[in-house]
């Protein structure tokens, strides 16, 4: 066989240097009596079984290094003449780099986790990838690495929890990440003293710092494509073994209203959908409060026909409007919570009993007005238009503040509440980034990190 000189530069050392900061990089030296070989691969994207069967076992079975070299050269998907760029691409795509003697082989032994991956449950999209992060960290890393094949994607591993010893992976794109955020995150993780850590949302609670919080400051997601998208925007992802969800930080208010299928749709449609979501938030926050304000304080604000309509539908209702609103909203919250806990087989019962019978009977009995029922349904439905659960829950709680303000001083209270919460949101920082800003998207898009959003 003609001695092939490998291109200068491509060597396991060189690759290792390029892939520094990869906690899942495996570097092995194989030593037999006369020969030795070197093996380098990324654990999360290569198939460990194939490596031991096709690469390691033959090394010990073959007589000489030359025979082993010939064997590797003949392996399907093996490359010998590659330049640095190709070599990196191959490595990131799931190859092992083997040095036997003076020769370098790069053999494709990719791992694609398919069997163990479940489908998304909490963040479904209409047309798009449906893989969800699982509870196994290596599977998750495989899912991410396959979608983000860059040597800049660094991975650091730590362990959190004195008892649970939860393996934690910190992922970030070195060239795009804000290093101050990264340093702050590491510092907070280092000072974290807890016994048991079992869920991603829990970690969010510990690292965000503030005692009283209404709004989430990290995204908890189960979608690998969301993780990848955010990594490309320069954010940091933290993944836990056994958690099933990743958290992404820093997250600003706007991020919670981006669904992953916004980019699938045509631009106009995408904008429209986003607008719908914001409208949904406005409705779910304001409708009950405005109902109280309009019926109890300022009926003259709305058109006289509407005022009469509301008054007509409330003719039989024996208590003030805010009692009506609170009763119906609480009913709705009970239904939401109950249908979450119920076994799947009985689930529909709750909706039937709650939605149909209760709604109908309550109005027929004159306990609540018809309009109130419509309003509660609007509030409930529009609340769940928010793509990320954490935010949707925050908004769910927030609307009661607005109702309380409306009970206290009517329309004035609602507007005061709006100003107060805007000021509060603006004062928040997520790892040093302003949480709430007009034109937040524009400023994020014009920066150098904008390549994730296209």
């Amino acid at each position, binding site marked *: 066989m003609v001695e092939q000189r490998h291109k200068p530069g491509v060597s396991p050392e060189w690759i290792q240097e390029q892939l520094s900061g990869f906690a899942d990089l495996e570097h092995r030296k194989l030593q037999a009596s006369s020969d030795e070989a070197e093996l380098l691969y990324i654990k999360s994207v290569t198939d460990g079984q194939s490596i031991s069967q096709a690469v390691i076992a033959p090394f010990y079975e073959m007589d000489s290094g030359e025979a082993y070299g010939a064997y590797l050269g003949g392996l399907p998907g093996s490359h010998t003449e590659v330049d640095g760029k190709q070599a990196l691409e191959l490595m990131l795509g799931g190859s092992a780099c083997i040095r036997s003697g003076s020769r370098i082989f790069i053999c494709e032994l990719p791992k694609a986790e398919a069997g163990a991956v479940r489908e998304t449950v909490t963040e479904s999209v209409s047309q798009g990838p449906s893989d969800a992060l699982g509870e196994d960290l290596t599977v998750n890393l495989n899912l991410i690495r396959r979608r983000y094949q860059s040597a800049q994607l660094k991975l650091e591993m730590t362990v959190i929890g004195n008892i649970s010893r939860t393996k934690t992976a910190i992922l970030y794109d070195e060239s795009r990440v804000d290093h101050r955020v990264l340093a702050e995150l590491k510092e907070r993780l280092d000072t974290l003293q807890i016994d048991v850590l079992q869920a991603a949302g829990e970690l969010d609670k510990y690292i965000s710092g503030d005692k009283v919080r209404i709004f989430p400051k990290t995204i908890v997601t189960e979608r690998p494509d969301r993780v990848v998208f955010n990594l490309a925007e320069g954010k940091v992802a933290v993944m836990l073994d056994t958690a099933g969800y990743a958290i992404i930080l820093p997250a600003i208010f706007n991020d919670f209203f981006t669904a992953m299928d916004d980019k699938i749709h045509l631009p106009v449609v995408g904008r429209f959908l986003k607008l719908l979501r914001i409208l949904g938030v406005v409705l779910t926050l304001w409708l009950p409060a405005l109902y109280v304000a309009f019926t109890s*304080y*300022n009926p*003259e*604000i*709305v*058109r*006289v026909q*509407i005022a009469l309509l509301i008054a007509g539908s409330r003719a039989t209702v024996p208590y003030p409007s805010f009692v009506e609103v609170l009763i119906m909203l609480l009913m709705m919250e009970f239904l939401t919570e109950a249908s979450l806990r119920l076994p799947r087989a009985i689930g529909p019962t709750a909706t039937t009993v709650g939605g149909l019978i209760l709604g109908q009977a309550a109005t027929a009995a004159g306990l609540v007005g018809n309009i109130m029922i419509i309003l509660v349904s609007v509030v409930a439905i529009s609340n769940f238009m928010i793509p990320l659960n954490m935010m949707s829950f925050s908004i769910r709680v927030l609307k009661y503040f607005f109702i309380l*303000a409306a009970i*206290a*001083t*009517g*329309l*004035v*209270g609602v*507007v*005061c*509440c*709006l*100003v*107060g919460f*805007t*000021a*509060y949101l*603006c*004062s*928040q920082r997520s790892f040093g980034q*302003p949480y*709430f*800003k*007009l*034109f937040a998207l524009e400023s994020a898009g014009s920066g150098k990190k904008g390549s994730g959003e296209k």
Partner: protein
Amino acid sequence: MTKNRYYFWLILMNSLINIVNFVPRELIDGRFTGAQASIPLAVAAGTLLTLLFTAVIRKFPGMGVPEIFTATLPKFTVPPLLMVFGLLWCIAGLITLLSFVDITLRFISPDTGPLLVLISFLAVVCFSVRIDSHSLLYTLEMMLGISLPLIVYATIKAVMTPSFCWDSVLQTFTYSLHAPNWHSFLASTFSFSGYINLAIFNRVFQQLKLKPFHFVLVALQGLVVLLLSLFVPIGFFGTAAVEKHIYTWFSTADSIRIETFIIERMLFIFYMAYLTLSLVSIIIHWHVGKELLLSLFPAPKRKAAKARKWQEASILAGFCAAAVILMRLDQYELNTFGVIFLDVRWYGEIALLLLLLYCYAVTRRRSL
């Protein structure tokens, strides 16, 4: 860093808020005695002041007035000066607050107790005043984003209404050649005094780069707002009857009917827009006032947070107490109070500008 546009928002906020602070009243009172001629003069003077003040304070990047004063002026002069300016800002917020409480009681909820309305305003304001300057600018931008479209809509709707009497407006224009009126002039310059908030907000503007174009914009928006705030009520109520209203603009908004919306009276949309804007304006003014007064206290050395909180709380308690006490003023007194403030404010602005020029001269001399 903070961008230039926030500087513009500060000016725009003050400019829009003028209709709550009795500026249209002063203009309308002078409509036969030279208000028309004072407006262009005020635009020139206001833009000039804005230009000068910005130019001076830019020489102290990242510094607020307290820092500049302590660095350059003799020790014993600093506390009284800061005290006076702090009180001026406090009063600026107070007038907006009190007149808005009055507007609320008169137009929106006459049944609600005045104290309840005042307390709910104070609660929001005191909560938000303590937020850092950066975030307040974001809040201001957000609130302008909500209220500005509504205000523009209300104004366009007003001018487009068929019952808008252009003849009255034209008739008022026939008094344009009357020599300018000092009070109307002072009142109109209020529209430009948004820049003065830089006294504290300059701390967050690191590189404020302003081109001549920006000042043209400042002048233009001031001119448009002033002309509108004088002439739209006249178009609605007529040349003579317009003086019978205290809150001229809210009465104007109450005269507009929206034919095709679930809210029929423009007043409520206008009120909501102005309520948000006024609250933000009070917050910004009191924030500046609070920061000025706060610098009177010795800076706590360590474990700063707690002592600082108490100082803040005591200042704000003072502000709130002033608000509650001044609630006793009736409408007429409040109006007089507001007009006096409009005059005093002008001299205060000039004084601050001169002081800063002096400070700049001192630093120049020192550095030579």
